């Protein structure tokens, strides 16, 4: 599984999907959040692997996310 962390929320999704697909699975998109792995930014086409912990950084200050 891949773990996504957004502020105090956590999501778990299947490994092997792209960042874009993974975000869509949990109702997010890359205009609202930036995906980072160990502090490095990921592009939408990056494949996420088993055990990855992805920290999501909200783009809109003060937004719902």
């Amino acid at each position: 599984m891949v773990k996504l962390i957004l502020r105090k929320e956590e999501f778990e999704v299947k490994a092997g999907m792209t960042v874009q697909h993974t975000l869509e699975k949990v109702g997010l998109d890359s205009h609202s959040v930036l995906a980072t792995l160990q502090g490095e930014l990921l592009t939408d086409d990056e494949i996420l692997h088993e055990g990855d912990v992805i920290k999501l950084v909200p783009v809109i200050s003060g937004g719902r996310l």
Partner: protein
Amino acid sequence: MKCRKCAEKAVINMLQHKLALCKTHYPQWIVDQTQRFVEKYQMFTPQERVLVAVSGGKDSLSLWDILWQLGYQADGLYIGLGIEGGIGYSDESQRLSEQFAHERGLRLVTVDVEGEYGRTIPELALQTYRGKGKPCSVCGLSKRHIMNRAAVQGGYDVLVTGHNLDDEAAVLLGNTLTWITGYMLRQGPVLAARAGMVRKAKPLCRFYEREMAAYALVRGIEYIYDGCPHAVGSKTINYKELLNRLEADRPGAKQSFYLSFLQAKEYGFFRTPDPEQAGSQEIGADGKLLHPCPTCGQPTSSGGECAFCRMVAEIR
């Protein structure tokens, strides 16, 4: 995905530019583009003194970082609003702004609203007619007044803010939905100086908000992730989310909306309501003639004191 300029892994893909860049070339591209926009819109020159309004957020700290790298004479201005919101919002944003300035040896001017006017912004919102249910209205009015005052008193040539393209497109959408053409006439990358009012510029107005967040991350700038607690659910944020949905379906939609507006303005689609009546006098966003406020000297279109001085008088 590879960087367009080298073989390294890209950290961002900007669909509207069809451009992917790595962690070395991306921040450099942002700096170069900012310089291009500063020149294109004639915002300021290297000889001029620049005051950067900083909030501790990603946009304003990134802007200061970019201008510092470009070698501009840029000082920072932090306004202590006294907003707690359960997260120590103002304290944390001030700490981050001070830390940023200290790390780079930059000068940060601080104005504390409570220290100067005896009330924090949330208190002003509770105790004044203007603030009833609208803390953002009090906050915006106070910040505009204080920023201009600090720039004029400090002898700065220009006041710059970290507004990005998403901010500008959201404001434009709001004004378009109600056709407030007076505000549209004044919206743009640069607002010229007038009597009592310093020139204002927005060097980041051509970058998407996600690009500025990415820049701050790549540059390792520590900023406050949380937005102002009072802004949650605001119209501007709602408009940004709407525009992002449009952008997801049609990459470049936000950019096209804003740039087409700037072009329409250039073609004269938005004009002062009655230029003949105004003659050589300045006209405000509401179409009324401007005159100096008898208390603070800043331009106002109201009959007597400006809205800020009236609000301060109300609590005194």
